[in-house]
């Protein structure tokens, strides 16, 4: 629910995982890295869309993918779940911090499929968020 604080979530290992960091002022940062094993995929598919529901009209959403590798079919489904959750939400600004160019291509393709490409813009640096 918008405005309901979620605890930080940290799933996975150095090889592949994600972290959800809500902030007290309503912003949301999700960092993802590596290649995801099945347990990370499952957790991301549940927790990331749920965390997105906390976004309010004044919120800034940052998806940090600097260290994320291209994902297989199941990992792509988990990313689609996040993008589909985000697409209709009325947050102020959404950014994807890009790294691996192949990952960036994959995310751009998935964003377009989920009609979320107008909600999240790619950036090289994290100008806002934390």
């Amino acid at each position, binding site marked *: 629910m918008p405005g309901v604080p979620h605890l930080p979530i940290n799933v996975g290992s150095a090889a592949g995982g994600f972290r959800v960091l809500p902030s007290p002022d309503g912003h949301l940062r999700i960092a993802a890295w590596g290649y995801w094993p099945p347990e990370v995929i499952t957790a991301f598919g549940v927790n990331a869309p749920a965390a997105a529901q906390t976004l309010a009209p004044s919120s800034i959403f940052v998806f940090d993918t600097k260290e994320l590798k291209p994902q297989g079919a199941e990992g792509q489904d988990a990313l689609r779940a996040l993008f589909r959750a985000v697409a209709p939400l009325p947050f102020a600004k959404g950014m994807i911090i890009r790294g691996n*160019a192949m990952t960036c291509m994959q995310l751009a393709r998935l964003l377009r499929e989920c009609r979320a490409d107008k909600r999240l813009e790619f950036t090289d640096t994290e100008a806002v968020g934390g």
Partner: protein
Amino acid sequence: MASAEDEVTQVIYKFYDALEDLLRARGTGSMIEIWHHTDYVTTSHPFGSWARGWTEVKVNWEEGAAVFSAYQGHATRSDRIGGIHELKVVVMGDAAHGTGIYRSKLYMSDGVLDLCLNCTNILQRIDGIWKIVHHHADQAQPEWQAAIGRMVGAGHS
């Protein structure tokens, strides 16, 4: 009987035929078949970062195919998108490498997009069959990567 150098040369040409298939939306089957499916295979593409282990390598080729599913510039053309040139092969027992120059030409809606990269392929002979265990291509120039990115974002070339 073909020499080991000839066998390796043919496998490397088949690799670039498989790449052509992948870029022209003819599937990843031939690319998957030509690789050794094991944890120590590695690949790097004109887009950049390393994929390590067969799971990641396979995903990278599949994503390459997904990226180029938006490319329509060769839909009505018979010329190849790209190929390997100046290929030099060295065989050392059950290991071999090939170095060459990959040149490609994409016909985008706003003009022709050329690519010219140094490439290395390393092969291992496993049960008498040469398999790719490593592929490296230089990173493409930023303008080329940006053009492919625009194609993916737009969903068409």
